[in-house]
């Protein structure tokens, strides 16, 4: 029966990973604009955004 608990532990870890991913995505604002990314898809460069500046960490609100 012990294997049951090992499996459950594994499955909960996996599920918790997905939950953490979801929370991260919401915090990043990925659910706020669902329209523009569909338009970027149509561009040949895949909508890769370029920049002249060195990437810096910016606080996310």
């Amino acid at each position: 029966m012990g294997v049951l608990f090992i499996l459950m532990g594994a499955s909960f870890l996996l599920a918790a990973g997905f939950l953490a991913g979801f929370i991260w995505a919401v915090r990043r604002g990925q659910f706020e604009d669902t329209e523009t990314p569909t338009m970027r898809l149509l561009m040949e460069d895949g909508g890769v955004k370029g920049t002249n500046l060195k990437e810096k960490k910016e606080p996310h609100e």
Partner: protein
Amino acid sequence: MDCAVPIDKPTDWVGSEADGSRLCFHCGLVCPDSAFALGEKHFCCAGCKTVYEILNEGGLERFYALSPAAGVRPQGDSARDRFAFLDDAEVRRKLLDFSDGRVARVTFHTPAMHCAACVWLLENLFKLHPGIGRSEVNFPRRQVSIQFSEAKITLSEVAALLASLGYEPSLNLGSVEGPVKDPVARGLVLRLGVAGFAAGNIMLLSVSSYFGLNHATEGFIQRAFGYIAIALALPVFFYSASGYWASAWQSFRARVLTIDFPIALGIAALFFQSLWDIFMQHGEGYLDSFAGLVFLLLCGKWFQRKTYDRLSFERDYKSYFPLAVLRKTEAGETSIPVSKVEVGDRIIIRNGEIIPADGVLISPAASVDYSFVTGESAPIARASGDYLYAGGRQRGGAIEVEVTKAVSQSYLTSLWNNEAFNKSERPDITTLTNVAGRYFTFAILAIALGTALFWWFANPSILVRAVCSVLLVACPCALALAAPYTLGTALRVLGRQGFYLRNTNAVETMAKADYVVFDKTGTLTTSRAQEAVYQGMPLTEEERAAVAALARHSTHPISRAVSGVSDRAVEILDFKELAGRGIQGRVQGRLFQLGSRSWLQARGDDTTAAYLAIDGDVRGRFVLKAAYRPALRRVMAALTERFRLSILSGDNPGEEAALEQLCGAGVSARFQQTPFDKLEFVRDLQEQGRRVVMVGDGLNDAGALKQSDVGIALTEDVAAFTPSCDAILDAQVFGQLPDYLAFARASLRVLRAAFVISLTYNVLAVSIAASGYLSPLISAILMPLSSFSVMGFSVGVAKIVARRMGLGA
């Protein structure tokens, strides 16, 4: 998106011929001549040609391959000094999202973007200037967020760069207030996710006990499962459902019962009963039902929050006012932020600009269009020394004004001090759901009290358990889901039609309305088309064309209307605009003059008109006639059947007879109404017990729109600013307004039917609980069954009703 990326068009697309004329390679408009051509490519104006050259040099010519002729014709000049006020420290601080002294980020609202190619161009802005970093577009909001190096480019240069491409950022007094963020949405999605996660996993654990996990032999596993389920349910109780605890507590303290109160009671009962069962090893508890219910309830909340990112229902006068104004000092003219305008400043207002503060006219003459504020369509002539109220738009040459009141204290802005604008947002206890919830609560409390009394005498040891069972099965969750899904569907159906409602409450209030008040100017009439009617000696076709062509040179409202009397192209020579008097020009040697009565020394009455003289002879005059919306007669006829109607107008009563003929005698009309009069009128109706729908368009209706039960702002261009309101109606579908109101009523009938269904489930559940033991299994079946069937009924029937009424689905 009216222009998605066409993949079948050749990439070297060159402006094609349409009825013999060439189309602009950049913006797709007809080119009047080939003055602006580059090889095979034709452009309609210097602006479009410049944009093409900028893009070509920057290596961004792929823009045209993504979507041919999708460019935006740049309006006005993009000179940097026009945006100089952006470099003012205070304005900068308010506009910038972020700045560390070297790199800054700004978000501009650019209403001109309209397709995938625009998105591509704006996100490749860095190719045009070395100081620009990453830029990112939020298309639904028409926003572009740009990172830039403060050492290499200033904020005003960024704005000028956008303007030079045709994407002029919309900068008004409202935009420095900071972007309106929606903190609710993000939290709701998170709550929903957590509840869904917990509900799914608890269900997996529960399934094993429903399918015969044996108490005696596998007691340990069952206990372990129970504790794991509790661990999963805790975040649901403390985080996901927290809104219900707060709302129930608030409604308890305010002694007004909303639907949230019995729901909170029900889910709390579910939770604590389950804890008790698991700890005392009575059974496996109802935690799966608990988490599932919270998840479904949050789904309902999410569904009813259909938002339109492009639209704002919260705008006030600040969105109409410019951010900057030209101040004249000894040193010269400088652009300063409107917030820094002080009493005594001399400011310059150019043609088409809005006067931001009350002041005294210094220039000899001005022609001020107050249609914005009063609804009166004809511009008013003002002479030197006259008092000018804020909100008027100058027509004609630039004028100089001495400011006498600060921007925040002007006549127009004082409307916003009215108490109608300070109504706090409280839960509406008159909604059908909350009324039903109130009766419901009394019923449950009565039953719970009865149960408690019964067991007090019969068997006090199971009293708590029995009362808990009653509260738990009587949880009106299906009832609470009926409104979000029915009205949320109605919201979506109407939104697809071009009628955008702020929230689901608006559907309900609209269904209960019995009085409709219309504004006249801009609402019943179209602001797009004003008809110029000619009175006088007959004109030949050539003369007509010449006058129209002459009028096209001026932006005066009468000229604009006159330019519509013919669309033939005629060349005008020696064009001259004489401020306050009129315009003149030569056509084939003949002198055409269009202007005021005094200038041409014509005879006539005081009607607002443009007089016409050819070679010095007065031939007649053009009178402006408001063009009523074509659907007006039909709309009024349809609405009279059900509503009392009134028309409020800021105009003079000259149109009274025409209006009555169009709308029927049952419609009362009032003229020369100030914005305050309109507000008072609506309030008086409400005091008589009427539920008022107000349909208006401009700032002059802002007070009445706010005061009314449902304020509908009519707009020709949905992207344009509309005053604060509950709904925005696209002027193109004005004719359907009676249908939309009827659909709102039909939706309410669907909602009532959904209530009956969900109540049936509650009666069923209570009787099962009363007749015996309500097992977790039955609860696990009944809970989703009732919720899903009510959701399905609400959405399905509302859509069928919409289709029957011809509103599509």
